[in-house]
């Protein structure tokens, strides 16, 4: 437990001091949001249909930058072997890195969600709690897959670059569920279907976090 909090504290302090990744992630998210908004000229009812998909796609592209750099500090500073040799379970290391990535996604979503609603001219306050709930359930699933795949990529040489090919198909169920939840929330359809999509998000979060915790040991082997 102490090691978990130590790694989380280390990564957060390191990021706040160096500001290497989070500003770039936020900027990428803003740019993607702006490009989508510039290109999509639709009526309000039509925007309601697509804002969910565009929002979560933006979150994914910007968040992928954070996932990719999850273990970059250890790799670049020659501390990768030290991290693997720490006398703590690999699962604790995974959960610590996952926590940092979830916090990064939370920061990104707290910026992107209001931005998307402002650019789409849709009421945000009316859907605030639904959107917060969707983000709270989608981010853990996204972060779990991203952290695990990042660990796989960091562990080895040439094959690591292709791993980005497999991240998107793996998280598509999470993105689809989040987009559909957002669309229904914006359309004021908080019904059985909305709760079912939300439950799916929760199930995926639990499943991916568990899988990531158990598989991380194998992901970081030599």
């Amino acid at each position: 437990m102490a090691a978990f909090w130590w790694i989380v504290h280390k990564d957060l302090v390191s990021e706040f001091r160096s500001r290497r990744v989070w500003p770039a992630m936020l900027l990428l998210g803003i740019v993607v949001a702006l490009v989508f908004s510039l290109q999509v000229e639709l009526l309000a009812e039509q925007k309601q249909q697509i804002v969910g998909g565009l929002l979560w796609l933006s979150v994914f592209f910007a968040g992928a930058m954070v996932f990719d750099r999850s273990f970059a500090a250890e790799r670049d500073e020659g501390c990768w072997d030290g991290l693997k040799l720490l006398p703590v379970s690999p699962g604790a290391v995974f959960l610590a890195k996952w926590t940092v990535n979830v916090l990064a996604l939370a920061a990104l979503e707290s910026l992107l969600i209001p931005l998307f609603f402002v650019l789409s001219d849709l009421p945000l306050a009316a859907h605030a709690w639904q959107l917060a709930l969707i983000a709270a359930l989608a981010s853990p699933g996204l972060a779990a897959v991203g952290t695990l795949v990042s660990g796989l990529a960091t562990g080895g040489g040439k094959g690591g670059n292709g791993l980005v090919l497999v991240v998107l198909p793996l998280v598509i169920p999470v993105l689809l569920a989040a987009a559909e939840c957002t669309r229904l929330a914006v359309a004021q359809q908080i019904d059985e279907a909305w709760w079912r999509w939300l439950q799916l998000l929760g199930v995926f979060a639990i499943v991916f976090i568990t899988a990531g915790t158990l598989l991380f040991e194998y992901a970081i082997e030599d």
Partner: protein
Amino acid sequence: MVSRLRTYCAESCLAVLMAGAILAACLLAPTESTMGHAQRIIYVHVPVAWLGLVGFLVMAGSGLAYLSRRNLAWDHWFQAAGELGWLCCGLTLATGSLWAHEAWGTWWEWDPRLTTAFILWAVYSGVLLVRAGIDDPHRRARVGAVLAVLGALDVPLVVMATRWFRGLHPATPEMAPWMRLTLLICVAAFTVFFAWLANRRREQLELDSRWVHLRQDS
């Protein structure tokens, strides 16, 4: 000599089974009243869809077995099942499109089952592509195993999609008894064919691995 004879007998039986399945699909099954002969594509579509899912589960199972035993023989099963499963998944999408064009008037719909089947194919493609870029056999096996286990979490979603979410794709349509029998024969025949192909591919990969070792030792 005996084992070669046994192989010939087994492969002959397989040929008879596949021929029987094709004949059943073309001649035994009655013509469907609404779609006519176009409906017969389900005698290919359903078996390859089933095998697309089975292939992924075999892949994930082989991956788990490799992670626990570290025997590359399991990785050969992984590769064989992965390649064939990817092919079956692609055929599922292709034959499904042909059927959809006749049934729904469109080649594609973002129906839950079609979407999740496409996701499965994309995961297959990603895993095989990533493995192809790794030279070290043990690292390739380990990375593939981790990704396949993660991707296998998508399989239950594909299976349950039509039960959880309403869509265009039929869940369990009513079928005449002869149609159901023909479908079962086709599923059985394709499954045996898949197993035979996977075994032959595994043997090929094993021989390839031995040849690489011999070349390194010499």
